[in-house]
């Protein structure tokens, strides 16, 4: 299996037969794009959940305040 590797050394692999810039730029773009498109939805989910949690807590506190007012008057 390793016989069919097209490069004889690491240096040759990185130089890509003179096309290092083209090949590695495209693969770098791909990795960046891949990471961004998986990472951002996960960050966003955390953000949404914490926002909603805060909203629920505020709502509950408002409710108890209202109830207290009702008892006092």
């Amino acid at each position, binding site marked *: 299996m390793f016989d*069919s*590797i*097209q*490069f004889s050394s690491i240096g040759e*692999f990185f130089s*890509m*037969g*003179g*096309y290092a810039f*083209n*090949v590695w*730029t*495209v*693969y770098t*773009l*791909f990795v960046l*794009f*891949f990471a961004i*498109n*998986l990472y951002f*939805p*996960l960050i*966003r*989910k955390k953000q*949404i*959940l914490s926002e*909603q*949690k805060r*909203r*629920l807590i505020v709502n509950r506190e408002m409710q108890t305040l209202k109830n207290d007012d009702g008892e006092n008057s």
Partner: protein
Amino acid sequence: MVRPGEHDILLTSMHNLNSRQESAVQRANYMWMWFSKLGSPKWFYELSGKWLPWLVVAMSLLLVVGITWALLFVPPDYQQGNTIRIMYIHVPFASISLAFFPLMAVAGTITLVWRMKLADMVAKTAAPLGAWFTALALASGSIWGSDIWGTWWIWDGRLTSMLLQFFLLVGVISLRSALEDAEAAAKACAVLSIVGCINVFVIKYSVDWWNTLHQPSSGFSLSDQAPNPPEVWIPLVIMIFAIYLFFAVSLILSIRNEILVRERRSQWVEELVQGT
């Protein structure tokens, strides 16, 4: 005139007809229930949560195999040398980017006709992802062409129609954010997506219609003598499947977020939020 005895037969057959009609109605009801269940955000959220780990595992496996194969084992092209390795990124992204407008058009039609909530969420989240896919296809093609064609850009049929798709997608995104009324925005985007499908045919056939610098589709062959032997196209097929899975995973992640935002006042989301 009904003779005695025949009466029973007549009744039985009438009964049969009725039960058959009833079962047809029942089947239609089941179909409708299944259909509306499919459109239920809660149902989708739960089902996609079960599917996601498997999709991610399959995607990672295919990506590792595909990229290793493409970078190390594919023989250099006799004309293009090692730039052939760019193909394993460029072709999957370019071909999958053509799926976005049809997807958004189907989702848009469902939104217009049945007003299914989930369909509009799909349409909304697909547009930015489609713009990303199209941009990466354009960028990788441009970097590939800069050496092989000797130019970064040329206004030929394939490249121009692809750039038009990018602008159309940006148009759909800005149209949605420009209209304040969410329902009106959904309808307008649905119509634009349906119209935008025309451009997909232009992109697809541009290499056949016009004499362009971009090569036409090469096709796959099992023969060793073919210009594209299996050792060249099998890793390409693996990469196409891998990127399709990546498309599915990132779309599902965004749809799930959209569900959490739009359904935030529903009981199940509140329970889910409290559980975190």
